[in-house]
C-alpha cells in the first residue's frame, strides 16, 4: 500500500513569505507527527496529532509555526513570515496507535524548505 507522502518535495521561498507543507499519512493511521531536520542533525520533534487534535505541540519553535489536521487524516504545517533559519527538511510520520504498546512510525520522504 501507499506510504506516507509529502508535498511539495522541495520548496524555495523568500524571507518573510508564508508556506504550507502537506502530509498524507498512511490510511487508517490515527497518529501523525511532524519533525524538522537541519543539515547534519537528527530529526527534531515539532508536533503530534492524535486524530484531529494536537496532543503535543511542545516542539514548535515559536508562534510562526502552526499545524492542522482538520479531518484526522491529511495534515498541513504552516509557517508564517519565514526566516532563513527555517530552512530544513520537514519530515512527517504516521503510526497506528493501539493501546499503550509501541507502534512503529512510518516516515515520509520529507519536504526540503529553503528560505532565501
Amino acid at each position, binding site marked *: 500500500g501507499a506510504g506516507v507522502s509529502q508535498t511539495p518535495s522541495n520548496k524555495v521561498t523568500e524571507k518573510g513569505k508564508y508556506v504550507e507543507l502537506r502530509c498524507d499519512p498512511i490510511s487508517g493511521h490515527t497518529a501523525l507527527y511532524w519533525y524538522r*531536520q537541519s543539515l547534519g542533525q*537528527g530529526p527534531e520533534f515539532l508536533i503530534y496529532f492524535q486524530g484531529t487534535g494536537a496532543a503535543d505541540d511542545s516542539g514548535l519553535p515559536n508562534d510562526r509555526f502552526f499545524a492542522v489536521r482538520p479531518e484526522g487524516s491529511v495534515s498541513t504545517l504552516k509557517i508564517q513570515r519565514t526566516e532563513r533559519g527555517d530552512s530544513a527538511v520537514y519530515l512527517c510520520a504516521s503510526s497506528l496507535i493501539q493501546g499503550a504498546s*509501541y*507502534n512503529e512510525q512510518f516516515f515520509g520522504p*520529507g519536504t526540503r524548505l529553503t528560505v532565501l
Partner: protein
Amino acid sequence: SQQGEEDPQALSIQEGENATMNCSYKTSINNLQWYRQNSGRGLVHLILIRSNEREKHSGRLRVTLDTSKKSSSLLITASRAADTASYFCATDRGGYQKVTFGTGTKLQVIP
C-alpha cells in the same frame, strides 16, 4: 533538543567488515530504536529494543542496550555498499511515543 549522541560521527569501512555505532542518551526511556536514512531523506525503522531487553538481533543487525550506562550499540555485520547511510538512534518514554533522535552516525561502506 537532541536526546542522544551517536559515536562516531562518521565511519568508513570496507565492504564485508563489521560496523559498530554507539548511542548515548540522557533520560530514562521506554524504547530505543535505530533508524537508517539515505541521502538526507526517507528514515527507515531498523530495530526496536525495549528498556527491559539487553540484546536483540534482526538479520545482520545486532543491538545492545545498557540502561545503567544509558547507552546502546548497533552492530552491522558483513557490511555491504548498500548499507551506506546515516544511522540514528531514537528514544521514547512510552505513551504516544514522542520520539527523540540522536545526532547520527554517517556510515560509508567502500566496495
